[in-house]
């Protein structure tokens, strides 16, 4: 079965830059702040933001930990140089080390979560100083798989790329002329040495994007996906990941007591009144 995730990148670019411009300016801001990891997703968000509101209004933050790959910093710099956005660099090592020392047995994933949340703290703090809104960098694949840190890398005021699968972000990245080394390297959260997304997930974005596209966008049932040629164990793993991570895609449920409760019957868009 031919599953085609090709997008018209001109159209995506037009809509997403319009979205960034509208959703920043209508709430009274003119600027954006982005955690620029050196990876593909944040490079794309950064390039879109620069195109939408002007490079001088975009602040890219480089927030390495002492063991972060030097490539990450260099690749982030390539984006900063190419798109001429503002930049600040600050190590998070001193923020997270006391917590790591407190519990020497801490697992890699706990340490990774702490680093992601430390970067969120800096992002929001610098956004206050720069008077810019934090722009998100999570793609549809990782959001659906829950391959994210709650209140960490998911935290942002708006997210321009959250409805694009990873392989579609890559198409857009090529159209935006994101520097080649970023396009070429394997995706990684760079939370520990040698980590790669595909190694950790156990499948490739190429495979999982097609399955997610059938399940989510095309509303295929599990059995339809198997008939389309996906392996049962792979399909079941992915379906279960999506179900178990639903909590990461919503605000915490509020226990209903009154006649009108936030989240259930107090319904307004964020853009209320603007």
């Amino acid at each position, binding site marked *: 079965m031919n599953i085609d995730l090709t*997008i018209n990148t001109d159209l995506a670019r037009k*809509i997403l830059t*319009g*979205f960034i411009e509208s959703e920043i300016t209508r709430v009274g801001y003119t600027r954006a702040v982005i955690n620029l990891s050196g990876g593909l997703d944040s490079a794309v968000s950064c390039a879109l933001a620069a195109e939408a509101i002007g490079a001088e209004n975009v602040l890219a933050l480089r927030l390495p930990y002492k063991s972060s790959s030097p490539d990450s910093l260099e690749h982030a710099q390539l984006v900063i140089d190419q798109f001429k956005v503002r930049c600040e660099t600050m190590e998070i090592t001193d923020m997270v080390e006391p917590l790591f020392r407190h519990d020497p047995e801490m697992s890699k994933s706990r340490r990774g979560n702490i680093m992601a949340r430390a970067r969120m703290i800096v992002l929001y703090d610098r956004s206050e100083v720069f008077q810019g809104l934090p722009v998100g960098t999570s793609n549809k694949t990782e959001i659906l798989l829950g391959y994210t840190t709650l209140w960490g890398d998911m935290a942002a005021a708006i997210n321009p790329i959250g409805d694009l699968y990873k392989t579609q972000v890559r198409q857009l990245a090529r159209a935006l002329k994101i520097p080649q080394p970023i396009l070429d390297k394997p995706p990684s959260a760079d939370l520990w040495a040698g980590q790669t997304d595909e190694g950790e997930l156990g499948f490739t974005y190429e495979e999982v994007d097609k399955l997610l596209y059938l399940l989510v966008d095309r509303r295929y049932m599990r059995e339809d996906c198997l008939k389309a040629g996906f392996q049962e164990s792979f399909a079941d793993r992915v379906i279960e990941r999506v179900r178990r991570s639903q909590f990461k895609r919503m605000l915490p449920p509020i226990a209903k007591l009154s006649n009108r409760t936030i989240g259930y019957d107090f319904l307004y868009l964020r*853009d209320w009144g603007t």
Partner: protein
Amino acid sequence: MQLNLALAQIATKLGDVQSNLEKHLDYISQAKAQKADLVVFPELSLTGYVLQDLVATVAHRPEDDDPVFGPLLKASQNLDVVVGFVDEDARHRFYISSAYLSGGKVLHIHHKVYLPTYALFDEGRFFSHGDSIRAFDTRFGRVGMLICEDFWHASPPYLLWMDGADLLLFSSASPGRGLNEHDKLESAWWVENVNQSYANLFTSYVAHSNRVGFEDGLVFWGGATIFDPKGERLAHGPYFEEALTMAPLDLNQIRRVRARLPLVRDERADLVHKELSRILSK
């Protein structure tokens, strides 16, 4: 007879009726300056689209003493105006509505009949559905108005046609969706296709006014169109940007097309009625 038709594809502020009213008056002046006879605004043009719990606070009655409709009715003394708004009836039911204003009077109000309540849409939760589809007479001939989902169903345009409408005015707040390899969103492709088809099938003028701008993550795609009774596109507004799209409509074109292609003459509405009655009585 010629009708200079203007389609005002505007972005709106969500729930800020006063600000949207000012934009309407501005576009009406622009249309007047460009010698338009009729200007059509999109669905819910005075209120914004994803209203949710704002519905009751943005409702207005299309009457002279209403602070929103007063100025609009006054402006309609210069040229005819179609606006989108939330209508509230005497029993406090709320409707997605279009009002046709002309010569300082309300000529017709259409309440949206089909309220999409699926996928990203939740209109049925917040609104009552209209229960009539009627054409009405204007100084440009007989006109019919529909709102977005109304014309995703084939029967409302057909009923307006049978009721004598030669000019169909469609308005939408259509959220863009369906990005693929093509240079047009699926939603835009679908709407433009059916608009053109209705013009062909009904040998009538079909105009579509769709809003632009964003509400949270939803983008409204604009792309106003006017199709003539042969299905030829007379005008196409830009995608995603505010614009006043205009075209002169030669109303004699209706006569010329129907002299060649007498679909109105040959339509067997009595047969439709008979067969529908049979089908519904099963």
